[in-house]
């Protein structure tokens, strides 16, 4: 395409110049199919009048061999109809732009391309246009072309004519439905590049083509010189994109719109568009709800992670401060390491603290001793008690009759048996009972005194030197386990409890 157009071709020049290439691309991409698909909703030939049964077989026999059928994907149809919308929007002749430009093609190729474009328009008309009883597709096409051929000089007249056409038909669906289509395409299309065309025309009328890699088109064909107007460039892009192979177009240029549009087509080609829209809206709402839940969960996770990060940062800050303090202390210690005065002061403080510690320990011992002594009788009370015990002992001895000589002989016979009396006698005098009694009689000691002394010895043995009240040897399995637990945990095994003689145990 080394041919440079003259400036007089302001609007249609790029279209005219590029249409052959477009159609070439279109011809290469619109792949003819020899076999009729079983039930393909994308087949435009089946949508207007599906033929079945004998009539179909008759028509096959009578008719001439038909042209290979073309199949456009939904995305491609949208692009074709968007081209129509663009033409209406910018008062371009639809026939000149889209259809008559196919004149460069001849024969079968032209027919194939024309059929593809007409099929797409027909389908769009069927879905979004007026009912078939009101107006035919041909009338719709003629009406649009006639309107587009109207005088373009007077905007007011043009607006009135549009209003008239709309009112005569009750509605003017192609424009609005295409608006809907383009809006959806805009929503599903990726964001435009930063260097994309920002003119008011392209922004307002063809937002869906902002992400259509338009800059690539400029650089591809014209290398930046004789830059065509957007009004002419966009239809070229439309047709080109519509003519590209369905697989590549659907996946590269409009992947999301293609996926979004496949849903209603799989339901039924005859389903009204509002039903498909509802299904689509429901799916989108579900997807939106799911995404909202995911967003909430992600937000919560983010908040938790932020809190954790905040805590860790605080710890890190505190640790850094401590590290600085330690470093400062180390530096100070290193500086004062050889300072004799500081060392002397430290030694003095150490000695003072040690003295204070010793004083506190001694005070604690004194306090504990005082508390313990408060529970213990004083020495004076002990003396008084001893006097009373002795007095009671004497009273007891005086209240019984004593037969000393006879008994002394009796106790002599029991010397070998170590009777308690003999033990008491030895404890008292260091002699046997007979020797003790004999010596006492020789010293003119009365029987009461002898028995008193013996009873006092017995009292010392039975009462004071017994283990009464011994709480420890009481049999208590639970207490034994408790003690064993304390011993194994807190102290090494302690020696066995001292065995108490049966005479001392109470």
């Amino acid at each position, binding site marked *: 395409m080394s041919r440079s157009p003259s400036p007089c071709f302001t609007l249609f020049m790029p279209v005219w110049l590029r249409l052959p290439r477009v159609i070439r691309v279109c011809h290469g991409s619109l792949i003819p199919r020899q076999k009729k698909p079983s039930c393909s909703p994308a087949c435009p030939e089946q949508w207007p009048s599906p033929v079945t049964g004998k009539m179909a077989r008759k028509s096959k026999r009578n008719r001439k061999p038909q042209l290979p059928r073309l199949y456009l994907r939904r995305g491609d149809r949208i692009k074709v109809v968007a081209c129509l919308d663009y033409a209406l929007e910018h008062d371009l002749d639809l026939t000149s732009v889209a259809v008559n430009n196919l004149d460069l093609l001849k024969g079968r190729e032209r027919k194939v391309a024309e059929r593809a474009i007409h099929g797409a328009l027909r389908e769009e008309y069927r879905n979004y246009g007026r009912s078939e009883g009101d107006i035919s597709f041909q009338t719709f096409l003629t009406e649009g072309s006639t309107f587009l051929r109207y005088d373009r000089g007077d905007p007011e007249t043009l607006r009135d004519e549009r209003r008239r056409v709309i009112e005569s038909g009750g509605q003017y669906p192609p424009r609005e439905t295409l608006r809907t289509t383009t809006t959806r395409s805009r929503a599903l299309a990726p964001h435009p590049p930063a260097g994309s065309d920002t003119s008011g025309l392209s922004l307002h009328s063809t937002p869906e083509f902002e992400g259509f890699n338009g800059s690539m088109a400029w650089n591809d064909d014209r290398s930046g010189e004789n830059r065509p107007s957007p009004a002419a460039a966009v239809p070229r892009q439309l047709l080109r994109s519509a003519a590209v192979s369905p697989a590549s177009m659907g996946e590269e240029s409009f992947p999301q719109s293609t996926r979004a549009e496949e849903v209603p087509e799989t339901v039924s080609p005859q389903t009204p568009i509002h039903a498909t829209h509802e299904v689509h809206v429901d799916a989108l709402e579900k997807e939106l709800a799911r995404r909202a839940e995911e967003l909430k969960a992600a937000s919560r996770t983010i908040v938790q992670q932020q809190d954790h990060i905040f805590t860790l940062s605080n710890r890190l800050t505190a640790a850094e401060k401590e590290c600085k303090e330690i470093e400062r202390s180390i530096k100070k210690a290193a500086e004062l390491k050889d300072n004799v005065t500081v060392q002397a002061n430290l030694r003095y403080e150490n000695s003072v603290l040690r003295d204070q510690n010793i004083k506190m320990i001694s005070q604690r011992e004194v306090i504990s001793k005082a508390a313990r002594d408060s529970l213990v009788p004083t020495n004076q009370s002990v003396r008084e008690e001893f006097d009373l015990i002795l007095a009671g002992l004497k009273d007891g001895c005086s209240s019984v009759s004593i037969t000393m000589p006879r008994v002394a002989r009796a106790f002599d016979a029991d010397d070998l048996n170590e009777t308690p009396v003999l033990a008491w006698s030895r404890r008292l005098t260091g002699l046997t009972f007979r020797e003790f009694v004999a010596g006492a009689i020789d010293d003119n000691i009365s029987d009461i005194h002898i028995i008193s002394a013996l009873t006092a010895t017995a009292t010392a043995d039975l009462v004071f030197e017994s283990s009464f009240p011994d*709480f420890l040897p009481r049999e208590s399995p639970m207490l034994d386990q408790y003690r064993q637990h304390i011993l194994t945990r807190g102290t090494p095994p*302690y020696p066995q409890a001292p065995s108490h003689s049966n005479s001392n145990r109470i």
Partner: protein
Amino acid sequence: MLSELDLLACHSILSTPNDQDNSNSYFHSKILVKTASDLSLSLANALQGVLSPSDDTMLGADLEPDPFCPQTPATPTQEDRNQTEPRSLVAMAFEEHILRALKLKANLLLARSKYKLVFPHPGHRFDATTMVRDGESQRTGSRFAQLNGKRNGEQELQGRLKVKLCLFPGLYVRREEVLSGKEYGVGVNVRNCLVECDNFVKGGGEEGRGMEGFSLVVRAVVLV
């Protein structure tokens, strides 16, 4: 901590008032009385050949049936009376002083101290600082010893006195070392922290043997 807790626990056991008699604890009103009765009976059994009830009226009075309770069940036979009643009567005579001794022993439990009873043997020289003659109270004897100790003649007289018989032993005490701070912890026996019931050192009837660290509390009552 364990020592103080055990001390307070023992004090609580010894001094908790009885439900029926708020003036005395269960320990004093029940356990001590029963123990005193048992010990006095043991004493009576040990001295059964020496001691007997003083007169028959005392025995007969106790053997008469209670007029207010004529149908006393399990009335002992005459043979049983002859075997047991004299001992119980003798035991009753010593029960009072044994009960008092038990109370003193229980009160001395709470002191972390070792006590020792010393019986001066006959023939030992009388020492007024550690002995007191029979008939003198502990305070009077002490004052007498202090007053007369300055007189050389009486001091010589006391030095010539010898003990004939010890009527009641003298009491000595030794303060147990309180566990210092470094001794608390591992290696300290649990028993060292508990209240020691057998805090009276056994044996050692003679003075001067194993008396290191002991100090006099009560002087012995002797006959000279």
